């Protein structure tokens, strides 16, 4: 595909723009000044390499999805919160799971004590998943599930709920995070070692390729990498590298790149340095497009178009003078919008200390609604494009990312996938992240970097917090529920299907998803399924690199 002459490119952009159905709002400033959809020259939004955005009309046709994370307590509690958010105007459901669930353990595990329902919803069996989505029509919502190690089991449960409520799997829309590589690098919610985990991921990619066209099987995440302490360039590079690694794995597993790449999506952090973040987002699109086309040979433009969800930086929230976090979140949300994100979660101001209260969650949603409806930034596509600083920052982010890719190709013998395995193995990723985190901490400690309310401007901290407490009733309820389900199910069926699963796990050629779905339908618990697979795959133990 050669670059069309500039006039041709603009004409192509114009054509695409004219063919787009726009939102029915006046595209003018608050004072009534009409504004153009686009200023400046190429590259054009909606055209390779998509630096200025994926679509010709940007937010003029559709705003980003306001996807607010929810999940705490019992499945019933979360179900109620879901319904509230849908009523309040949120467009997508986003689920957080509790620690035992995230780690592939049941609520009655030794270490589950004190954690059940605390940082998300507890899901032990299909019964909990049914409660979670009770009275919600799965064909009319888009659901995002934030889980990684046991992603296959949870996705299997969602599919089973669909089946039981008359929704075909081909109609299910949403995302499952399922980004296992970043677990070894940052979030540490791994179960099995890297290579068997990658097999499960490729099984899910193959399965969704043929059976679930509306489902995004991986949300390749930089958010956690950033939260763990990396800088912006590392977040960008490690995330994209992980993306490339999944591409290489899927292709090696026999998939055609254009069969799955369009359904890959990304998840970035939006931190406080405004222009760095915007440069990062734009560079991300450009790098992904270029690599997919030039290195991996993608033909379908949708394979080159990087879609991403953004969450404002949890790690930037302070417990001191928590209300001022609302300001931080607003600026970070604005950066996401100016970076062209497809969906956005804004943090609640009280999240530095605990899960958000209802009020705080509502304020967070309202914050991004202000950005969307009051600021006018959505009237123009990539409004900062062409600004010298912004273009320089975009180039600089790209340059730094390329340096990191070069290193991974070096240690991976010209394969990013092997480079990822090698980097996990020799502590490259965790070392870089720990160094960056420590550097930042020192700067704050020495007063070189000001964090308002923490090392400067500390007057005004009331010290009072109205925190969300998860009572012990949640744990009691969940344990009872788990027990009931175990009593009522057919134990023989459970044993049979788990044995079947173990047999299939040994053979890398067999896709584990169908049997996984059968397993959850017998009400085998998440912990039981995970334990069965651990027998075959082993358990991952991290090495200490400091």
């Amino acid at each position: 595909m050669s670059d069309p002459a500039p006039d041709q490119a603009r004409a192509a952009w114009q054509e695409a723009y004219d063919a787009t159905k726009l939102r029915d709002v006046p595209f003018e400033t608050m004072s009534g000044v009409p504004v153009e959809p686009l200023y400046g020259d190429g590259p054009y939004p909606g055209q390779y390499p998509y630096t200025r955005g994926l679509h010709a009309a940007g937010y003029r046709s559709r705003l980003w999805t306001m996807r607010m994370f929810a999940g705490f307590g019992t499945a019933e509690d979360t179900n109620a919160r879901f319904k509230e958010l849908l009523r309040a105007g949120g467009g997508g459901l986003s689920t957080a799971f509790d620690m035992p669930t995230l780690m592939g353990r049941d609520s009655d595990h030794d270490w589950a004590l004190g954690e059940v329902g605390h940082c998300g919803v507890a899901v032990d069996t299909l019964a909990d998943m049914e409660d979670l989505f009770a009275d919600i029509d799965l064909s009319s919502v888009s659901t995002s599930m934030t889980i990684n190690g046991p992603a296959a089991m949870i996705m299997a449960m969602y599919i089973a709920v669909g089946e039981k409520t008359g929704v075909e799997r081909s109609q299910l829309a949403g995302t499952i995070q399922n980004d296992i590589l970043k677990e070894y690098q940052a979030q540490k919610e791994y179960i099995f070692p890297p290579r068997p985990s990658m097999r499960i991921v490729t099984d899910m990619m193959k399965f969704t390729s043929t059976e679930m066209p509306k489902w995004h099987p991986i949300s390749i995440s930089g958010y956690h990498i950033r939260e763990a302490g990396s800088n912006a360039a590392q977040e960008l590079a490690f995330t994209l590298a992980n993306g490339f690694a999944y591409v290489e794995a899927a292709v090696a597993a026999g998939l055609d790149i254009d069969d799955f790449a369009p359904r890959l999506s990304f998840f970035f952090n939006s931190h406080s340095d405004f222009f760095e973040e915007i440069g990062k987002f734009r560079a991300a699109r450009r790098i992904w497009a270029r690599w997919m086309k030039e290195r991996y040979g993608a033909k379908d433009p949708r394979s080159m178009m990087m879609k991403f969800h953004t969450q404002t930086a949890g790690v930037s929230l302070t417990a001191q003078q928590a209300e001022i976090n609302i300001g931080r979140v607003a600026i970070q949300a604005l950066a996401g919008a100016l970076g062209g994100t497809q969906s956005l979660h804004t943090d609640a101001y009280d999240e530095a200390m605990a899960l958000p209260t209802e009020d705080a969650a509502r304020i967070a949603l309202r914050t991004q609604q202000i950005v969307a409806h009051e600021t006018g930034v959505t009237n123009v596509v990539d409004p900062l494009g062409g600004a010298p600083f912004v273009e320089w920052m975009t180039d600089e982010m790209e340059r730094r990312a390329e340096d990191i890719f070069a290193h991974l190709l070096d240690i991976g013998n010209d394969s990013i996938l092997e480079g990822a395995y090698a980097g996990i193995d020799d502590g490259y990723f965790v070392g870089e992240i720990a160094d960056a985190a420590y550097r930042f901490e020192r700067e704050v400690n020495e007063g070189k970097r000001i964090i308002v309310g923490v090392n400067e401007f500390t007057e005004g901290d009331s010290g009072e917090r109205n925190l969300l407490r998860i009572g012990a009733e949640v744990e009691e309820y969940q344990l009872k529920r788990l027990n009931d389900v175990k009593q009522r199910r057919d134990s023989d069926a459970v044993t049979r299907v788990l044995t079947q699963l173990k047999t299939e796990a040994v053979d890398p050629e067999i896709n584990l998803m169908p049997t996984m779905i059968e397993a959850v339908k017998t009400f085998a618990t998440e912990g039981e399924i995970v334990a069965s697979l651990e027998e075959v795959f082993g358990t991952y133990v991290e090495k200490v690199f400091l």
Partner: protein
Amino acid sequence: MSLRGLPPADIFDKALGGERRALGRLITFVERDAAEAETVAELAHERAGNAHVIGITGAPGSGKSTLTGQLVKLLGEAGKRAAVLAVDPSSPLTGGAILGDRVRMEDVASPDTFIRSMATRGHQGGLSLAVPGVVRLLDATGYDPIVIETVGVGQVEVDIAGTADTTVVVATPGMGDSVQANKAGLLELADLFVVNKADRPGAKDVRRDLDLMLDLSHVSGQDQRTGMRPEIIMTTALSGEGAPEMWDAIERHRTAITANGQLEARRVNRDIDEVRNRLMADLESRVDLMLAGQSLAGVAEVLDAVAARSLSPTAAATQLAARIKDL
């Protein structure tokens, strides 16, 4: 019941009885060269001399900790009661250290394995003094074999690995190890070479380079300590591949040096080295006191003369050396 206030002999008895807390405390005494250390040393000396001491050293990133973990796992499965002394560098600036080797081994080690982390600067008297004392303690309380794992960057760490009965040097592809091995004198010290990460490209090259160097040193007449040519074992520590072969090679080495009397000779040398190291450490602290003007009269005048350039350092040293007998 607290160990506090207990005489060292009582703590020693507890350690003999299997109380690991007591053993941990005794090791601290030795590490710090505390007042109790001499009593402890005597008690340990009476009972020591049985354990096979294995030194494992390699550059950072060579995977030696993982390898040690695999070795320890094998030993546990073979019913042995092993101990590991994991030595890591202290920060030269602050004297502190982060010791992370323990956790790599804990998951694979049997509950009987005793693991102690040591920092290179964590104590009085220097590492070369503390390690023999700790090894003797572990030996005396019945641990066998005893593995000393060091990072082979400093000469001291390399030397310590070299004081073992069997010294294993770990190399990996892509780290220019063959050059490093030559530099630090590791070639002379190694009784066994392990090429780890054998599944990576370049592993065979490392093996070949080591073979070449061993051939050369043989030709040039450089004495290996035992007259035996060190074996080279390929391992992939992460999967455990090659670990049984490594253990077999260690056993073969031990059998050989027991048979030809080398083991005894090494242990005698080790003990005499320890005497020498202690004497030198003692001498060094006396010289320091002397130069600080805190022990003998007239020293300050000599140093002043050096500062005023009326006396050369050589002459000054000759003068003061004559007074060493007074220290």
